[in-house]
């Protein structure tokens, strides 16, 4: 059993019931083939980086599940046929995943949902910090090479 992640981009002006219908059908496909759906993460309406089928906006849904290859094929077949789906993409996150362990993990992280957002902010801050650090390192390193090269030059001359 592998862990997959499928992104589905619906038309932004699609009614919620229609979206639900597709998602329910896809979810049913996962469980029918012996897999487990972990979560449906709805990102909501977002601006697309480039127009798809002349649409500038799309409704993003991320689906996280455990299953086998044939289940993915079946899901993708349905999504391909559905004209209301602008784009989809499946990525294998993990080979030989254990759905039970993942569910337990999800349950513990769900108990503290507030911790998710500050974590995101801190990573952003961390990113900024690293660039500063990296620059500091770079200048240090440059200084080191300079001093190291000095005797060489003197020797050659």
């Amino acid at each position, binding site marked *: 059993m592998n862990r997959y992640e499928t*992104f589905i981009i619906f038309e932004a002006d699609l009614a919620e019931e229609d979206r639900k219908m597709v998602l329910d059908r896809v979810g049913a496909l996962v469980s029918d083939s012996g897999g487990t759906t972990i979560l449906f993460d709805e990102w909501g309406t977002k601006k697309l980086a*480039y127009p798809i089928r002349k649409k500038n906006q799309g409704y993003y849904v991320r689906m996280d599940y455990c299953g086998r290859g044939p289940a993915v094929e079946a899901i993708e077949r349905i999504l391909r046929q559905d004209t209301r789906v602008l784009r989809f993409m499946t990525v294998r996150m993990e080979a030989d995943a254990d759905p039970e362990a993942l569910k337990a993990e999800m349950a513990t992280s769900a108990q503290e949902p507030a911790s998710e957002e500050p974590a995101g902010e801190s*990573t*952003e801050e*961390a*990113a900024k*910090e*690293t660039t500063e650090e990296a620059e500091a390192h770079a200048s240090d390193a*440059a200084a080191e090479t*300079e001093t190291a090269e000095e005797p060489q030059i003197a020797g050659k001359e």
Partner: protein
Amino acid sequence: MAVMNKRRFFHRRKVCRFCADSKLRIDYKEPNTLKYFITERGKIIPRRISGTCARHQRHLALEIKRARKIALLPYVGNYEQ
């Protein structure tokens, strides 16, 4: 010798950002992190410019391409930006 002096001026050691900070993840779901590694036109910045190590550059390129597929990043950027 003049060439060498000149080279020293421009020499600046680049550090792979992902090696420096293990908390920084390369993930196609985080286009804001990936944005640092593409040009305004949407091209992937080569590692000779960005200083990313080979391993992380491979990973980065893959994730940028994934993000492009689901329209989180552009294939062709807007040069007016």
